[in-house]
């Protein structure tokens, strides 16, 4: 019987989680009828920065804002909260992209109107590595929206993340 040792690092989990967040956001945008806009977006860039910020445990949450371009008002918001833990136990990578699709369908069912556009925001701890193309920003006001938890979106050794969506 052959055996093989595989070393798993936080870098591996950061890569996996970054890909799942990217894929989830694209899936959600497609469910909201914004597939064309999603196709034109540079998702590789999001994965690139998340690879760094998740690995150094800087990223606190990743937000997909959907807003009305005319009024600049936030219409719905999807937020992926990141939690870090020790690398221990049986290594396992898990994801549930369909959870994100379900969240998007629920948000759409609440009624989304306007000339919709989207923006991706990453909330980091202080001291996060500066990444080209990314700078400080201000999240749109979400005080008129109600938050709904959807549970775990993806996890791997050392990192797990859960999804919330917000609608009126």
């Amino acid at each position, binding site marked *: 019987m052959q055996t*093989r040792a*595989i070393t*798993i690092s936080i870098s*591996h*989990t950061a*890569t*996996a989680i*970054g*890909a*799942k967040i*990217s*894929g*989830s956001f*694209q*899936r959600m*945008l*497609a*469910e909201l009828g*914004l*597939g*064309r806009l*999603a*196709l*034109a977006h540079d*998702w*590789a860039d999001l*994965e*690139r920065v998340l*690879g760094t910020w998740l690995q150094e445990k800087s990223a606190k949450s990743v937000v997909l804002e959907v807003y009305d371009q005319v009024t600049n008002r936030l219409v719905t918001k999807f937020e992926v909260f990141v939690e870090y833990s020790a690398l221990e136990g*049986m*290594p*396992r*990578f*898990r*994801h*549930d*992209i*369909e*959870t994100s*699709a*379900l969240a998007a369908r629920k948000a759409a069912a609440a009624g989304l109107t306007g000339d919709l556009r989207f923006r991706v925001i990453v909330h980091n701890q202080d001291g996060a590595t500066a990444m080209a193309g990314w700078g400080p920003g201000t999240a749109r006001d979400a005080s008129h929206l109600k938050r709904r938890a959807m549970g775990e979106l993806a996890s*791997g050794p050392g990192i797990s993340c859960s999804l919330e969506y917000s609608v009126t």
Partner: protein
Amino acid sequence: MKRQRHVAADPARNTAQTYDTIAELIVGALPRATAVADELARGRSFLTYLISTEATAEEPLVLRADDTLDCDIFTVHGMDALSAEGATSPPGGARSTDWTLCIPVPAGAPFDAADVTAASSHFVVKRAAKKASPARATVTGGLASLVDPNELRKAVR
């Protein structure tokens, strides 16, 4: 002869690196065809979506040229990606100048069959979209590392 290639994706590679690996594999399989990488790039947004959502773990890309090259290209994710062997360009396309890449269009994708076929004359749509199963979770690791996922999927079907 039908062949298969399994390309390690996340967490071994991010989506862009996985796309690049698949593109290199296809370009290497078609040494006489021109501008293969450029044609593939027309479908980059489709392929990266399929990779990041793991759609290509179950529904492969299919590379065909003449009657001599017919290869399913799967992506492998999770723990299986960390132990996957390097995928080489499939044989059979050494003399081919024309080729097609069949691209799956799963339900819920941000593109449709018309988008795929409009992007390049080399792209075809594999088949009608399959309805997505509700709230399906994918787990890799543990016992999964002891099972060939592709054989398991065939058995389930």
